[in-house]
């Protein structure tokens, strides 16, 4: 009932069909739904630069504060006042 030639000629007679029109829209919707939120590299660089600037300025401010604090400490513990007794 199924000579090989008949099988293959039946297979070769299968028509090519057009995909449904709405398939492109569905595919595009799936792509946009699955696409991760992409951030531009420019913004990544700007954010990195801002962070770096923040760290540097923070370090600078802290450094300055420490310098000031040292002065204050020295002022507290070693008062630079003339050792004069009044009402002597």
């Amino acid at each position, binding site marked *: 009932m199924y000579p090989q030639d008949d099988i293959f000629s*039946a297979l070769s007679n299968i*028509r090519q*069909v057009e*995909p449904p029109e709405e*398939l*492109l829209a569905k*595919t*595009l919707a799936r792509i946009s739904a699955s696409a991760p939120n992409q951030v531009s590299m420019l913004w990544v660089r700007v954010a990195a630069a801002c962070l770096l600037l923040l760290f540097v300025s923070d370090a600078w401010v802290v450094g300055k504060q420490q310098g000031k604090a040292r002065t204050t400490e020295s002022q507290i513990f070693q008062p630079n006042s003339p050792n004069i007794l009044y009402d002597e």
Partner: protein
Amino acid sequence: MYRKKLKQAGIIYAESGDKYQNLPNFAPMQAFEEIYRAYAKMVFNLALHYTQNRQDAEEITQNVFVKVYEKLADFREDAQLKTWIYRIAIRQAFDFLRAKKAQKRFGRWVSLFQPETERTIEIPVFDHPGVELEQQEALAQIFACIDGLPDKQRTAIILLKIEQKSQAETADIMGITTKAVESLFQRAKKKLGDCLGRNEGK
């Protein structure tokens, strides 16, 4: 306008034999749509040959083009765009069929714990729109046997006998030699004959 740009960028149509040369970074979505329009029919029909079901073929076509969109930047020029898409489509078709099979197996297992009245029996539907009505019964039997073949033999039969590809084209798509294609085809042909003979006896 984009069409012109795409042509300039070397993206146009496998029918003309042109190679996909470089990716335009000005409009990836437009490039993707061009590729979709050029190859959607090919992918949809190939998916139909694997599933013989319109809904499943639509699902596979979507999966293929989502993959194409994601991997477009990785596409290497040593293969033709058409061949590359064929490979993705074949892989996606098998992935889909495997997932469906696993789902069915799980469903059957779950149904054992359900009361008999709630159990559903899923009958595979032969819904290949490319098959003429009078040939549906015969082709449903032939496809049932093709579906039972090992993956590579099944692909060889589909590409050679339904898609009418040459042995060289089939070998290129499958990434094997023409001799290997011939060998796969001969084994598939024998198994197909045996299967149909068995079914005829039933």
